[in-house]
C-alpha cells in the first residue's frame, strides 16, 4: 500500500509466528510443540492471533473510516468477514469429507460400538445448515467462527472506539468479567455443545487489541506508561513462564514437580481465564518496550518469511489448518518417528512461507499502477490481456 503509513512489522512478524505455532500445535503429539509459546506460557498462539487481528483491523479500517467514511468502512469490514466465512465453509467441507470417508470404511470392530457416523453427523442436513450458521464447529474449525463474528460486529466497535474508547472498553470488560463469574456460554450444535472460543469472553481481547491499534495510529503514547509498568510485567511474565515450564517438564518427566499444578489446573481456555489473559498482557507490555518498531531483526532475510505469513494471515491460517490435518495423517498413517516429524513440520512451514511469498507477489503485481506494469512487460506484449 504505497499511500499507507509505515507498516508496523512487529504485528506481521508476531502474527506470522502465531500462525506457524498454530500449525505446529494442531498436529497432535507433535514433539515440536515443545518449542511453541504454549510450552512455557499460559496463553497460546490463539491469543496472539486474536489480539493482533483486532489491532490490525483497527489500523486498517480505522484509516478507511477516516479517509472514506463510515459506509465504505462498514462495507469493507463486512466483505472481509464474508471472505472469512467462505474460507470457513471450505475447511468444513474438507473436514466432513475426511470424517465420512474414515468412519464409513472402518474395519475395527473394537470401535464400531463406540463411534458411528451418527456421532459426527447425526442428521447431515441439520449439521450442514448448523455449520452455515456457525453453530456446528468441529475440532480445529472453532477459531474462524469467532473471528467472523467479531468482524461482523466490528463496525459498531470501531465507531464507538473512535467516538470515545471507554464507551466500548468498559462494557466489553464487564462482559468478560461477567463470563468469568457466571460462566455463561454460547450454545452450539449438537445439543449441549458450546462455542469453543466463547465470544462473550474472547471479544475483550479483540476489542482491547483494536483500542490499542486505534491508539497506536497516534504514535506510541503508552510507551511511557509501559516503561513504568515494565518491572511488574516482567515479574508476571517470569513467574508465569516458570510455572508453566515446570508443568511442561512434569508432563515429559514425571518426577519433576509441576509447580502449583494442583491449585491452578485446569486453566479454562474457552472463557479466556485471567490466568491466560494477565500473563498475555504482561508479555505484550514487555515485548512492546523491548522490541522496537524499527528493530533490525524484523528486516533480516531470516524473518522475512514470517512477516510475509503474517501479512497474508487469512490464507496462511487456512493453509496451516489443512497442512496440520495432512501432517497428522502422514504421521499416523506412515511413521511418527522424530525424523518424519521433523520433515512434516519443516515441509509445512516451508509450504506456508512459499505460499505467503506467492500471494505477496500476486497482490503486489495487482497493486502496481498501469504505467509500472507496462515497464515490467516485455516490449510488444498485449496490453489488453489483464
Amino acid at each position, binding site marked *: 500500500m504505497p499511500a499507507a503509513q509505515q507498516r508496523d512489522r512487529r504485528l506481521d512478524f508476531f502474527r506470522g509466528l502465531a500462525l506457524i505455532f498454530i500449525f505446529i500445535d494442531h498436529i*497432535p503429539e507433535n514433539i515440536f*510443540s515443545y518449542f511453541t509459546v*504454549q510450552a512455557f506460557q499460559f496463553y497460546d498462539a490463539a491469543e496472539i492471533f486474536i489480539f493482533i487481528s483486532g489491532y490490525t483491523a483497527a489500523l486498517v479500517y480505522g484509516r478507511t473510516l477516516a479517509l472514506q467514511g463510515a459506509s465504505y468502512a462498514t462495507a469493507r469490514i463486512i466483505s472481509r468477514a464474508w471472505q472469512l466465512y467462505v474460507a470457513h465453509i471450505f475447511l468444513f467441507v474438507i473436514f466432513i469429507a475426511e470424517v465420512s470417508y474414515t468412519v464409513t470404511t472402518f474395519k475395527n470392530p473394537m470401535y464400531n460400538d463406540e463411534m458411528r457416523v451418527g456421532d459426527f453427523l447425526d442428521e447431515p442436513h441439520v449439521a450442514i445448515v448448523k455449520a452455515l450458521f456457525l453453530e456446528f464447529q468441529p475440532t480445529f474449525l472453532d477459531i474462524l467462527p469467532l473471528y467472523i463474528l467479531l468482524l461482523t460486529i466490528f463496525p459498531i466497535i470501531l465507531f464507538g472506539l473512535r467516538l470515545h474508547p471507554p464507551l466500548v472498553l468498559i462494557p466489553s470488560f464487564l462482559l468478560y468479567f461477567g463470563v468469568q463469574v457466571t460462566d455463561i456460554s454460547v450454545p452450539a450444535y449438537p445439543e449441549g455443545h458450546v462455542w469453543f472460543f466463547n465470544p462473550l469472553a474472547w471479544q475483550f481481547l479483540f476489542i482491547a487489541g483494536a483500542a490499542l491499534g486505534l491508539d497506536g495510529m497516534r504514535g506510541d503514547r503508552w510507551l511511557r506508561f509501559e516503561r513504568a509498568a515494565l518491572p511488574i510485567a516482567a515479574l508476571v511474565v517470569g513467574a508465569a513462564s516458570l510455572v508453566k515450564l515446570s508443568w511442561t517438564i512434569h508432563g*515429559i*518427566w*514425571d518426577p519433576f514437580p509441576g509447580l502449583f499444578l494442583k491449585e491452578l489446573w485446569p486453566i479454562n481456555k474457552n472463557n479466556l481465564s485471567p490466568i491466560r489473559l494477565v500473563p498475555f498482557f504482561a508479555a505484550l507490555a514487555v515485548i512492546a518496550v523491548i522490541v522496537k518498531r524499527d528493530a533490525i531483526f524484523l528486516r533480516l532475510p531470516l524473518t522475512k518469511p514470517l512477516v510475509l505469513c503474517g501479512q497474508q494471515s487469512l490464507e496462511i491460517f487456512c493453509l496451516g489448518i489443512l497442512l496440520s490435518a495432512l501432517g497428522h495423517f502422514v504421521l499416523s498413517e506412515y511413521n511418527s518417528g522424530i525424523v518424519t516429524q521433523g520433515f512434516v513440520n519443516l515441509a509445512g512451514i516451508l509450504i506456508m512461507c512459499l505460499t505467503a511469498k506467492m500471494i505477496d507477489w500476486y497482490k503486489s503485481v495487482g497493486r502496481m499502477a498501469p504505467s509500472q506494469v507496462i515497464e515490467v512487460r516485455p516490449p510488444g506484449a498485449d496490453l489488453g490481456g489483464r
Partner: protein
Amino acid sequence: MISSRFVGKSALLLAGALSAAALPPLPRALGEPAECEAPDELMHIDDKLPRLAERLHANEPVKIVAIGGASTTGLAAGSSELAYPHRLQEILIRWYPSSPITVVNRGIPRQTAQQMLERFPTDVIPEDPVLVIWETGTTDAVRGVGVDDFAAALQTGIDDLKARSIDIMLVDMQFSHSTVTVIDFEGYLNALHRVGDVNDVNVFPRFEMMRYWSEQNVFNFDGVAKDERAGLAAKVYDCIARKLAAAIRIALR
C-alpha cells in the same frame, strides 16, 4: 494443543531414557502371550491401592467394579466372558487364591464420563466395591464434549469414590490408527492423565499400549477378514486384562 502430559511415542523417546532406570520391571504373568509384550516405560504406576491391599492381605473377599464403555462390555469379542473385566478376574483369582475376587462388568456403550458418573449411585456404589476401574474418554472425544467438562466429571467421580474410601484406577481410550485421524484424543488424554496425576490416582495407559501394538503390527485389523475380527478383538482384550493385572500388582507393592 496444550500438551501437558505428552502422550506420544516421541515422549517415550525423551522420558524413556530418564525414567526407565527408576521404574521396577513389570511382573510378567507366566505364559503371557508374546504379542502382549510392551515396553515397561509405558506404565507409570506410582500410586498405591491401599484398600485393595488391605483386603487381599486379610484374605477377605474383594469386589471390583469395572465401569466403562463398549470396550468394557466386550461386545466386539462376542461375549462378556472375553471382555477385559472377566479376564482380569480370572487372572487375579489365580494370583491371589486366598481371597474370593469378583470383577463386575458395568460397561454401557457410548456414554460420556458425565453419563457414567450419573450411573455411580445405581451401578457402582450398591456393589460396595473396594476398587473401581473407570474406563472413559472415548465418547467424550467422539462427541467433542468440552475438555474442561470432561475433567470436571472425572474430578467429581474421583471425589465421590475417595469420600467412600474406594480405590480407583482410571483407564484411558483405545487406540486405533484410523480413528486418530478423525478424533482429536490428545486434549482428553492429557486431561485424563492430569486428573489422575493431581489426584494421585493411577491411569492405565491403554492408548499408548495399543498404539505400541499397532506400530509393532501385532494387532492390525486392516487386513483381517470380517469373521476373524472378533477373535482378534478377544486377543486384544486379553492382553489389556493381563497388563491391567500387572499394573494392579505394581500398585499393591
